[in-house]
C-alpha cells in the first residue's frame, strides 16, 4: 500500500467514479449476494410494486464510493479503520448511471486525529441523491 496520498485541500473533490446499472448487473449481484428478492430480479414483481420496476441492491450504487477512495489513494485496499456512515435516500434502477461525489471536509490536523473526513453522495444522472454520508479515512 502507498504511504503517501495525493495532496487534497478542504473542499476539494476526489476524482469521480461511476457505475451503470443494468438488469444483468443486478441479476449477477443477486447470485453473488444471495439476495434474490423479487423487487430486484423479477420485472413483474417490480412493476407491481410502488417502485414501478426493479431496483438495484443497495450495495450497487454504493460501489463508486469505494472506487473513488481506491483510485485517489492509489491503493488496492482501504486503510484499516476506514469508516463509512450513510443513508439510503432513493432507489436506483436499471438504466441509471450512479456517480459518487466525494469531497474532503476536514484534514487530520484541523479537527480529527489522524483522519481525513469526506462527505459523499451517490447521485443518479438526474442529480437525485441515492445515498449520502461521510467517510473517515485514516492517514
Amino acid at each position, binding site marked *: 500500500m502507498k504511504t503517501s496520498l495525493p495532496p487534497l485541500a478542504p473542499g476539494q473533490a476526489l476524482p469521480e467514479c461511476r*457505475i451503470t446499472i443494468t438488469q444483468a*448487473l443486478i441479476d*449477477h*449481484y443477486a447470485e*453473488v*449476494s*444471495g*439476495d*434474490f*428478492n*423479487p*423487487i*430486484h430480479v423479477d420485472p413483474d*414483481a417490480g412493476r407491481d*410494486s410502488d417502485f414501478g420496476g426493479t431496483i438495484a*441492491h*443497495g*450495495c*450497487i450504487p*454504493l*460501489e463508486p464510493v*469505494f*472506487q473513488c477512495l*481506491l*483510485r485517489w489513494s*492509489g491503493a*488496492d*485496499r*482501504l486503510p*484499516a*479503520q*476506514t*469508516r*463509512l*456512515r*450513510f*443513508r*439510503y435516500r432513493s432507489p436506483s434502477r436499471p438504466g441509471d448511471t450512479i456517480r459518487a461525489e466525494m469531497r474532503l471536509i476536514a484534514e487530520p490536523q484541523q479537527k480529527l486525529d489522524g483522519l481525513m473526513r469526506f462527505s459523499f453522495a451517490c447521485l443518479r444522472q438526474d442529480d437525485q441523491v441515492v445515498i449520502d*454520508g461521510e467517510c473517515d479515512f485514516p492517514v
Partner: protein
Amino acid sequence: MNPDFCYETARLGDVLCTGIVDVSEADIARFRSLMGYGDSTSEEVAPPSMGLTYGLKLGWEHAIFPPGVVRMGDDDEFGKPARAGDQLTTSFRIIEKFERKERRFLRYEMRTVNQKNEMVCAIVFVGLMPSNTKAQIS
C-alpha cells in the same frame, strides 16, 4: 435458518447466525469484473465491498431479513482486507430494537473476521421492519 424471525422474536445480543466462506482468486476476479474495477488493483485482494456482500449473503441464507424489510443506512468499518485463500467467518446479532412514529426498526450488527480472527468488516445497519405485510422489498 430463522423462518420465524421478525421484530417480535428478535432478541438483543443473541447471535442469529454464523457462517464460513472461503475466498478464492476466481471469486475476487469475478466480483471485480462485476463491479467494474479496472486493472489498477490486485486480484489477490478483495475489494472492500466484497466482504460486505459475502457477509450479507449469510444473512439471506439464514432468513434473518424478514420479507419486506427496508435497509435504511449503515455504519461500516473496514479492517484487514480479504485475500484469496482467506476463510471468512461472519456472524450477525441484533443490537437494538426501537419504534418511531409507529414504525419498528432493528439494528443489526454484522462482523466478519478472517482465519486469524482479524476484523475484515464490521457493519451496523438499521432495517425498517414490515408491519403486517408480505411485501418483497429489501
